[in-house]
C-alpha cells in the first residue's frame, strides 16, 4: 500500500499526466493496513505558509505604520 501511495504521489508531484483513474483504482485495490499520518496532513505547506507570512510581516514592519 505504502509503495503504491508513494508512486501515486510522485506522479502528481512531478506533474506526470499518467496519474489517471486507473492508477487510483489500483491503489484502492491494495490493502490499507497501515494509515500514515504524513500521507494525510500537509505539514510542509503550513510551515511554508507561516514562513511566507513572517516575510510579509517583516517587510510591513520596515515600512512602519
Amino acid at each position, binding site marked *: 500500500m505504502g509503495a503504491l*501511495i508513494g508512486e*501515486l*504521489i510522485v506522479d*502528481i*508531484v512531478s506533474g506526470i*499526466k499518467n*496519474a*489517471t*483513474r*486507473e492508477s*487510483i483504482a489500483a*491503489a*484502492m485495490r*491494495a*490493502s*490499507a493496513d497501515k*494509515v500514515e*499520518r504524513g*500521507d*494525510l*496532513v*500537509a*505539514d*510542509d*505547506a*503550513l510551515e*511554508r*505558509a*507561516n514562513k*511566507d*507570512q513572517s*516575510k*510579509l510581516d517583516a*517587510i*510591513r514592519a520596515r*515600512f*512602519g*505604520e
Partner: protein
Amino acid sequence: MRKAVILFTLATLGGCGGSLQKVHKSAYIGGAVTKSVVEETHKLWSEQLNGRADDCESSSESRAEFDECLGPFAHNDDVVIALAFYNKVAELLFRVLADPDATKEQILDVAARVIGAAEALFALMPNSGAPEKIKSILGK
C-alpha cells in the same frame, strides 16, 4: 473549481460506498491524493507570493502601497488559517482511519470535511492550478 472538487469527491468517495473496508481504503486514497494536491497548489502559491513580495518591496514607499501591490497575496494570513484548519481535519481523518472501532458513517463524514476544507483553501489561491491537477488525476 467547485465542480472539479465535487467530481473528485464523487470519484474517490461516492463511488465506493460499499463495505467498511472499501470505504476505509477509498477515504485513505482520497485523503492522500487531496493532501498531495494541497501541497503542490500551495507550493505554487508560495513561489508566486515570494516573487511578488520582492518586486513590491522595491517598488513601494509605504505599507499601504506594498499591500496594494501584493494584491491577493496580501491576504496570505487567510491562507495560513485555512491550511491550519485543513490540517486539523486531516489529522481527524488520520485518527478515524486508525481507529478500529470507527464506523463507515464516521469515516465518510470526516472524509467529506477534508474535501470541504481543501475546497475552501483552493478558493483562497486563485490561478494555482488545483482544478487542472485534479482533472489530470481523474484522467479528464
